[in-house]
């Protein structure tokens, strides 16, 4: 057992990255990610972490440096939020297509404008199709555990893909939580040394990021899509190994109180903590309600979601981003698409809430449940969504 201490989640995340013995950190500070990279810079400056900290001039450069160092065979970490992710967007896609196992923590924050430093999921939804493995965590312990998990999966030779850990800005980054640090021996046992599938080295020259002619491009993209899909069993394996070591098993889709549930909430990230408490309260009041938490966003866990909602009459999908002019929130659109045509598929209602850090409390979730339940026997249109709490 490692020691359990009360600590700011960002500091614990940085300590986890240091314990993972990262070689290169390239990052530009942006709220609410700042404390993570600040602490890493301190660890390097004080000689506690033997790594290169590259204080780049922009996020575009941060991801470019990350690509270069990963291609050279260095364990590489970067970290950003919102506008920073938007600025590095071009290289985010390239990192995945070159299959570079970079790990990035995305401290989720809304995209401008108007300018907002607070938390929602509009940043990550803008790179939904970037080709990275994308996971969501709901508390500080999960952040710590997923740093080790992310490097293990990314660098697995059968995977060799970059990983985004989505961690809600402020709701997680700036909270002080009880976190059990791993022992260094546990980290060493779980996370082997990085041996890249291919690397830039003068002894065996290769070219990365080559031109793709129309003749080959489709095949290259199919191979990339398949590689991301094929990473799922390795992701599950890495979570199983983590469970053997630490006793807590993470899954692509996790459920709470769904056994006899008629209605389930479906959400990602720190909202699941609040939702668990809301479920407890509603259960006490005799409601048959449960919670389905999506941990793995990419590759999309279709089978696990189907399994989780089997026998359920209604799914309330919580989105924390708007797909402007779209058929619903980004998560709800995918869930509707995934369940369309399934026998006895549940009805789906979609609530967009918690934009730019607006509080959504237990009471709010209970209200959403009551509203949604009233529509249990209605036919809800596929493109219907409600922006919860908006002042009319």
């Amino acid at each position, binding site marked *: 057992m490692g020691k359990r201490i009360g600590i700011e989640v960002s500091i614990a995340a940085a300590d986890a990255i240091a314990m993972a013995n990262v070689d290169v950190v390239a990052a530009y500070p942006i709220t609410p990610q700042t404390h993570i990279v600040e602490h890493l810079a301190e660890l390097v400056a004080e000689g506690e972490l033997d790594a290169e900290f590259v204080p780049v001039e922009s996020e575009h450069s941060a991801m470019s440096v990350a690509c270069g160092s990963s291609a050279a065979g260095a364990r590489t970490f970067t970290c950003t939020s919102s506008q920073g992710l938007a600025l590095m967007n071009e290289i985010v896609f390239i990192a995945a297509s070159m299959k570079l196992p970079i790990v990035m923590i995305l401290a989720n924050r809304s995209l401008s404008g108007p300018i907002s430093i607070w938390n929602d999921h509009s940043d990550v939804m803008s790179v939904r199709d970037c080709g990275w493995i994308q996971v969501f965590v709901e508390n500080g312990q999960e952040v710590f555990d997923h740093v080790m998990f992310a490097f293990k999966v990314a660098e697995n030779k059968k995977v060799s893909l970059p990983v985004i850990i989505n961690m809600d800005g402020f709701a997680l980054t700036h909270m002080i939580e009880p976190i059990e640090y791993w022992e260094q021996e546990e980290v060493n046992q779980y996370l082997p040394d990085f041996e890249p599938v291919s690397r830039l080295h003068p002894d065996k020259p290769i070219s990365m990021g080559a031109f793709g002619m129309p003749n080959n491009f489709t095949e290259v993209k199919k*191979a990339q899509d398949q590689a991301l899909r094929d990473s799922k069993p390795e992701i599950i394996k890495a979570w199983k190994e983590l469970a053997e070591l630490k006793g807590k098993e993470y899954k692509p889709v996790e459920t709470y109180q769904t056994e006899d549930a008629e209605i389930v909430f479906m959400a990602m990230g720190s909202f699941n903590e609040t939702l668990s408490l809301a479920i407890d309260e509603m259960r006490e009041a005799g409601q048959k309600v449960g919670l389905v938490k999506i941990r793995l966003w990419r590759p999309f866990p279709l089978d696990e979601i189907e399994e989780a909602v089997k026998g359920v009459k209604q799914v309330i999908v919580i989105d924390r981003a708007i797909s402007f002019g779209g058929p619903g929130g980004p998560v709800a659109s995918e869930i509707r698409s995934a369940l369309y045509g399934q026998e006895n598929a549940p009805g789906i209602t979609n609530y967009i809430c918690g934009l730019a850090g607006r509080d959504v409390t237990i009471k709010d979730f209970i209200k959403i449940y009551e509203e949604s339940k009233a529509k249990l026997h209605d036919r809800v249109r596929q493109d219907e969504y409600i922006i919860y709490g908006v002042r009319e």
Partner: protein
Amino acid sequence: MKEGRNDFKRGEKLGKISAEPTWKDLGTGFIVDDPGNSKEYKTGDWRSSRPVVDKSKCISCGVCYIFCPDMAIVKTEDGFFEADLYYCKGCGICAHECFTQCITMVAEEE
């Protein structure tokens, strides 16, 4: 000046590039593990006009060789310079730069 490139057997490995690999045949991340294979690629296909040298006006200065952006001009055994039509894209920079205007761009149709 290197003259070795003309010795390269054109299309020797071309089969590997122009063949139609399935997605399963492609390596991790579309990495090229055969450095320098771009010389197998025939850019001469792009050309709509080709440089023709009037040797009677040529002073063998090599300015065409220096300015060619694709290094497609080679020195011949008799000391003159000529375009390697396997690579020459027909941009016309050599004709533009030539001191004696001995290079004429001739449309490929003619």
